């Protein structure tokens, strides 16, 4: 019997690869230079008159996504910033997952009995991850002296470290579950070492979950970057200008673009709309991946409901 192809998964993979390619070649296909800005221009109005107008310019043939308040082409900014958003998300998720999995599986295999960790309330229960990162970065991220790539790495490391416990807990509990299977017991009786059991028995059983978990972590990292962006801590550094006080993203990372144009909610909405759409589309590709993976993971041994 031919299996139905998992459409969601396929679309998700196509979309995500599109974003990865865009972030790799973005700067080369960008229509304008990053430094290019158009402050004023003659615009032909509907009745044929020429009119001098200042930036921001709405979307037109020359500027597909329009320009921002200072005349920079938004499409160009998005293409230049893509690599920071996409690669930070992917790399941080991979690191969170690999470290969390390594410790989770090892500790799960070695822990003597099927004890479940019960949840403790701590002072940090009510403090979300992005607030912790906020306090650490608040002093160094605005008007930075460090180069953008350093700041991105620092923020990436913080997001990794603070995310590991979550992955660890999930993997630890899954390992405990898998350990209950008879084949693990058999391997143990035959003298399999902890390392052998984790590599040959636990890890293969975890594989499907790992992918789903990876997508989940990507989404969470994307959230954290965005939330920090709302508090003016943009990935790769924030440029602060005075009179009036405004914050600008140095790297043009996408949630930075959203954060810096938050005030354009009520007029010139294209300035915030296009970065928002790019960000949402990236999120959507992760959503499709996770929905597709869940569909292929589910219904393996489900009993049917009586109601």
């Amino acid at each position, binding site marked *: 019997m031919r299996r139905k192809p998992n459409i969601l998964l396929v679309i998700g993979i196509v979309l995500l690869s599109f974003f990865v390619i865009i972030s790799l070649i973005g700067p080369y296909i960008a229509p304008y230079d990053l430094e290019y800005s158009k402050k004023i221009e003659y615009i032909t109005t509907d009745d044929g008159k020429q009119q001098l107008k200042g930036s921001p310019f709405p979307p037109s043939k020359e500027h597909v996504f329009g320009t921002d308040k200072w005349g920079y082409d938004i499409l160009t900014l998005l293409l230049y910033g893509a690599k920071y958003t996409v690669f930070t998300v992917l790399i941080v998720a991979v690191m969170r997952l690999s470290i969390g999995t390594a410790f989770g599986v090892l500790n799960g295999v070695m822990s003597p009995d099927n004890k479940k960790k019960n949840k403790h309330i701590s002072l940090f229960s009510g403090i979300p991850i992005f607030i912790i990162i906020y306090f650490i970065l608040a002093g160094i991220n605005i008007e930075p002296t460090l180069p953008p790539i350093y700041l991105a790495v620092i923020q990436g490391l913080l997001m990794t470290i603070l995310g590991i416990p979550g992955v660890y807990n999930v993997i630890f509990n899954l390992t405990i579950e898998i350990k209950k299977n008879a084949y693990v017991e058999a391997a143990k009786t035959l003298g399999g070492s902890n390392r052998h059991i984790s590599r040959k028995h636990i890890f293969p059983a975890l594989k499907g979950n790992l992918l789903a978990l990876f997508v989940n972590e990507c989404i969470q990292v994307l959230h954290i970057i965005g939330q920090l962006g709302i508090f003016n801590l943009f990935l790769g550094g924030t440029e602060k200008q005075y009179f009036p006080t405004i914050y600008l993203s140095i790297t043009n990372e996408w949630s930075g673009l*959203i954060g810096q144009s938050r005030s354009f909610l009520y007029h010139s909405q294209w300035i915030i709309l296009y970065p928002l759409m790019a960000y949402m589309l990236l999120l959507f590709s992760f959503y499709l991946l996770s929905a597709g993976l869940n569909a292929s993971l589910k219904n393996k041994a489900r009993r049917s409901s009586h*109601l």
Partner: protein
Amino acid sequence: MIALYRHVLSLFLLLILAALPLGLFNKDEKVSFDIDGMAAVIKEFLMGLFSGDAWYYSQGGRTRLILNDLVSFFLASYLYLIVSAIIVIAISIFLGIFLWKKSNRWINASLGFLGMVPDFLLVLMLQIAVVYVNKNLGVKTFKVASSSIDDPAIFLPILTLIIIPAIYLVRSLSEATSEITAEDYILLAKSKGLSKKYIYFFHVTTNVLPFLKADIHKVLSIMIGNLFIVEYLYNTRGLTSLIFVHSIKFGYQYNLVIICLLSLFILYLFCYHSLRLLLAAAERRLAK
């Protein structure tokens, strides 16, 4: 004993964390890390707890007792949180248990994505939608943000606080319900000729509630995370806005931030136990 050590350790970490903006900053073209300065700030705060200085904060020119103002900020946050948490639980019991088959389908179809949209985007999109409706239809629907203390935005903040945790909880409860409806005791109840309504109330619900209780921690941490964004973007009064808005307006005040973070923990405990109390009451009614 270990629990006590853990709390002391996390209190210590919190003290350091809140001191970081004062100790780790850019100075003269390079990053400086001022451990002595941080230690001095922490020490000053701890001494101030006894001398009384740490209980006052400055608001521009004047100084005020923190506790005087904190209570009203705390209550505002608590009200927003608890009202939306109760609605979340009501929705999730209704959709996740009684309508679990339908809600499973909805979530898989379209609602699932809504649950993944980060809180700040949800806020921005709701605000754009309200502005759009107002501009194009001329209908004034909801306040986009609070303009003053007497005139707070209520509907949109609560809606934002509800949506994300509600979708998470409905998903998790409908998962649990689908497991439980496959149990043998449900089959037995059915074969005894009990009505569907009865089975849902007294067999399914009582067995799903423990899952709900276990999930409250997660739901509350999601909601408090959202609260930071909601209070900031809607400009409503609350504990988290006290931390940020005040720092932006009047400069970073260490004692204020620490006391706010600690009261955030108290807020968490308050909400947690209020919800547990509510669920205990519901269980008690079902057990009759």
